[in-house]
């Protein structure tokens, strides 16, 4: 395919419209406040998008497979808090990789429980994960107590200060923390799974038509369990990254962010009914949500109006594509020939 044809194809994709929206939003904010269009804002936004970003791509995987997981913040906070408390108790001074792996392992285990219930009983993921999110979070915090961890083990604390690079200007100084690699890693892994593995094509297949996937010999149960286990895995990672970033661990954080994360994936063109969604789209959706959450204030929109504006963006963004899809679906294919025109070809 030539570059021109590829470009033309891209302009027809849903990603293109999200990109347009992101550019437009940036331009408008930038016009109102030139300070927005600096590298510092970019780096700050990048930093702010690490934790939600890791979760967006995991959730996207679930939505493509046809299920909406809402337990990921609960899993994230459960894994990170349990890990933080455990390593605080151990007075850990060893490598930072161990607590990270621990949190990821807890997340994966909890996600697997979701997957088993959803796969074996064929229950709607939204409702199951609504239940398990309360179950996991409530029981875990109850059993270890809600006392927050205010001081991380020294190795974790040091890790939280590690930066990939820093740019210092006259008045500003912003850095990309090493935890950014985790976001990048998640994106790469999800991209690879979705596009280059049988498993990934199976995720699209079961989201497109579950029964057909079964008939085609896809291990639907296995794929379903993998998807939710992966969401658990990524949540565990997002949780511990959040703890590292905030240098403390509280048992109530992240909860409540689930709907915005889902909105980011959906604004990026992930089809809420399953079967469709791309990594690029979700990156743009994430950008859209992150910018509107963090930068509207730079545009002179008061902090109190931000929620309203974010809501408008969600409704307008999902509304446009939904309306077009509805129009397309309701339109009957043309039958009559135009007067004087030739015979309409076969199909």
């Amino acid at each position, binding site marked *: 395919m030539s570059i021109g044809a590829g470009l033309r194809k891209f302009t027809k994709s849903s990603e293109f419209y999200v990109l347009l929206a992101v550019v437009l939003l940036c331009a408008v904010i930038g016009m109102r406040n030139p300070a927005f269009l600096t590298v510092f804002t970019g780096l700050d936004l990048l930093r702010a998008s690490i934790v939600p970003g890791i979760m967006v791509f995991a959730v996207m995987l679930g939505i493509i497979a046809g299920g909406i997981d809402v337990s990921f913040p609960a899993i994230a906070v459960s894994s990170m808090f349990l890990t933080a408390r455990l390593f605080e108790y151990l007075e850990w001074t060893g490598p930072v990789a161990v607590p990270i792996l621990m949190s990821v392992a807890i997340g994966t285990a909890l996600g697997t429980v979701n997957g088993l219930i959803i796969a074996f009983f064929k*229950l709607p993921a939204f409702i199951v994960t*609504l239940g398990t999110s*309360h179950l996991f979070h409530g029981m875990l915090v109850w059993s270890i107590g809600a006392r927050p961890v205010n001081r991380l083990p020294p190795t974790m604390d040091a890790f939280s200060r590690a930066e990939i690079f820093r740019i210092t200007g006259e008045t500003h100084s912003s850095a990309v923390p090493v935890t950014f690699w985790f976001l990048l890693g998640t994106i790469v892994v999800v991209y690879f799974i979705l596009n280059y593995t049988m498993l990934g094509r199976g995720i699209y297949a079961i989201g497109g038509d579950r029964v057909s996937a079964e008939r085609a010999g896809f291990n639907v149960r296995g794929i379903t369990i993998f998807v939710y286990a992966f969401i658990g895995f990524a949540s565990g990672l997002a949780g511990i990254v959040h703890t590292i970033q905030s240098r403390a661990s509280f048992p109530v954080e992240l909860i409540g962010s689930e709907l915005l994360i889902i909105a980011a994936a*959906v604004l990026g063109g992930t089809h*809420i009914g399953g079967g469709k969604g791309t990594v690029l789209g979700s990156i743009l959706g994430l950008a859209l949500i992150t910018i509107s959450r963090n930068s509207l204030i730079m545009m002179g929109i008061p902090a109190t109006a931000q929620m309203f504006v974010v*809501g408008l963006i969600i409704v307008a963004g999902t509304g446009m594509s939904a309306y077009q899809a509805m129009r397309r679906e309701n339109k009957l294919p043309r039958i009559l020939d135009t007067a004087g025109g030739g015979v309409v070809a076969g199909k």
Partner: protein
Amino acid sequence: MQGNSIKNALSKLDFDFRTLLADTNLVRLAFIMTASFVLMAALNPGVYLTVRNFQSMAFQFPEIGLMAIAVMIAMLMGGINLSVLGIANLSSIVAAFVMIAAEPQIGGWGATFLGIATALVVGLVCGALNGALIAFVGIPAILATLGTMEIFTGIAVYITGGPAVFGLPSEFALIGSATVLGVIPMPLIIFVIIVAVYIVVLQYKKFGLEVYLMGTNRKAAQFTGILTEFTIVKAHMLSGLLAAFGGIIMSSRFVSAKSDYGSSYTILAILVAVLGGVNPFGGFGKVMGVVMAILTIQFLSSGFNMLRADAYLRTGAWGALLVAMLLINYFGNKRAEKKQIEAMNNTKITEA
């Protein structure tokens, strides 16, 4: 004995006992509700079975109960309503401003009535917006109401600037604090009346039956002569109205209105609806089921309170209850399905 206690617990409500027995899901729920009541009474001897406890329970559950029925209506259509809490808070905030402004002119009672009317109108308008986005724009309910949740709460945050609105008429506060005949809390009475009305509207009116039918197949509903777009809008308006009632009771109990009151209610309302046997795929679910579910939650909640149980334990218990209920229903429905198929097969054999 068990049947009697169910009857006692529900005798206050307009309710036909035979329809309860006809519906296995409801029987199951009644059993779970009774069991949690008995369990909590046994764990808290002396304090649980007191008028005071019953009173305090009856002050607490109506607002979430109403929001759960609001969620149920959306679920009947195969959708969901994530914006109930947003509607509740926004309508009570607008009502609060109206009441504060009107009280000096028309007095406390006048302002209260005006405030209630305002809240209900706001609820209807919010519901209509949800319905229109779903029916006419074609946004899936989960996304539409997620967006409007942000919008409604966003408006509430913007017009209040964040903090709670105080200075409501003392007459308005009676809605959430008064008792009738010295014992029956006002919220309970409101709840019972609204539940009765909604049972009639949803389960005995033509409109309600159309909602249930449409919930399983919107296209077939259109082909049946049901004006699906308007039915969706109307049903969401009914949902919004309930949310507004919830908001009125809530703000009256707090004698103030705020954009983030009841922050856990959204999830709780969905949980109660599902616990109450409402099918998230649409078309099935009874108001009485939701009522029993909210009572179950309240019985457990009060019991936990008395046991000084951790708030997290309570949250965990709700989750466990929901998951358990899903599994119980799963196996129950499987058995019922098998029976149906067998009955069908037997019919065929006798016909042949």
